[in-house]
């Protein structure tokens, strides 16, 4: 079995050539996804809430940004941040940083739509009820609307994180040694075992994605359904 022999390369698939070089392999995928998710979750709340703003000077730039980023492919965003923005503004950016930044921009615009949908999904009566008991609009947003919106957002948010983790494999195209790239390197070194190498890559992605999506199911059972039941079913 060629496939079982591939397990001799497990260290390269998991951390790349780390002690002697840059961190790579599956760890790079997870790091890219984590960096992009953590930074974008803050910016996406601002963008999504800004898009709902009644002030045109806030809502129009937010919706332009979201629409433009959402309408160009992720590959194009990665190209822009790696090849052209350093060229225009000068300076040198490492591949890992530019891939993380491109994924951050991509994730923040997609999550902004999740945030907007979550805020809009809270029934209008909640806002009206909050206003009648004398809360200001900001207080109502902070104490009434946002906590409920977050509970609605959680399932979508986690499934987006799983898909973002899979999208980190696009960093392969600019040369980050993540899991796909390490599979390519192994298959180039042993050209007769291409199938086994890519099978290992697929297994690495599957293990992480499957464990995340089953975690999401548990979370959904505990949080999502409970909050929705308490909100809509009397």
């Amino acid at each position, binding site marked *: 079995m060629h496939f079982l022999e591939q397990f001799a390369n497990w260290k390269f698939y998991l951390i790349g050539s780390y002690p002697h070089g840059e961190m790579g392999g599956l760890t790079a995928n997870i790091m890219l996804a984590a960096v992009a998710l953590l930074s974008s979750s803050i910016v996406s709340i601002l963008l999504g809430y800004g898009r709902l703003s009644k002030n045109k000077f806030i809502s129009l730039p937010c919706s332009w940004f979201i629409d*433009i980023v*959402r*309408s*160009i492919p992720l590959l*194009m965003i990665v*190209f822009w941040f790696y090849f*052209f923005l350093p060229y*225009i503004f000068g300076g040198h950016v490492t591949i890992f940083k530019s891939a993380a930044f491109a994924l951050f921009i991509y994730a923040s615009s997609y999550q902004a739509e999740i945030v907007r949908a979550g805020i809009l999904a809270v029934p209008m009566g909640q806002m009206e009820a909050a206003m009648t008991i004398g809360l200001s609009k900001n207080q109502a947003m902070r104490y009434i609307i946002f906590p409920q919106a977050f509970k609605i957002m959680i399932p979508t948010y986690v499934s987006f994180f799983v898909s973002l983790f899979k999208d980190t494999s696009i960093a392969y*195209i600019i040369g980050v040694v993540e899991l796909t790239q390490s599979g390519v390197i192994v298959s180039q070194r042993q050209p007769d075992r291409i199938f086994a190498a890519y099978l290992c890559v697929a297994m690495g992605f599957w293990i992480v994605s499957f464990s995340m999506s089953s975690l999401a199911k548990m979370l959904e059972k505990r949080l999502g359904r409970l909050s929705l039941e308490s909100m809509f079913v009397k």
Partner: protein
Amino acid sequence: MAITVPELTWATQNIESLTFRGIEATTIATVLYIIMSAIMVGIILWLEKILKIDMTSMTKSKV
């Protein structure tokens, strides 16, 4: 692009390797992508407008 299917992104990389004018090619490709998705969004919004069910008229007709 990654498996060299000759689509738009591949074409920009090809133009860059032939003429060394990457920024111009990528800008045009980005604008083309934005136009294409804007057209699609327009079609979907038009469909949404056509297929919208007017809830108020439905309840009135039942009463």
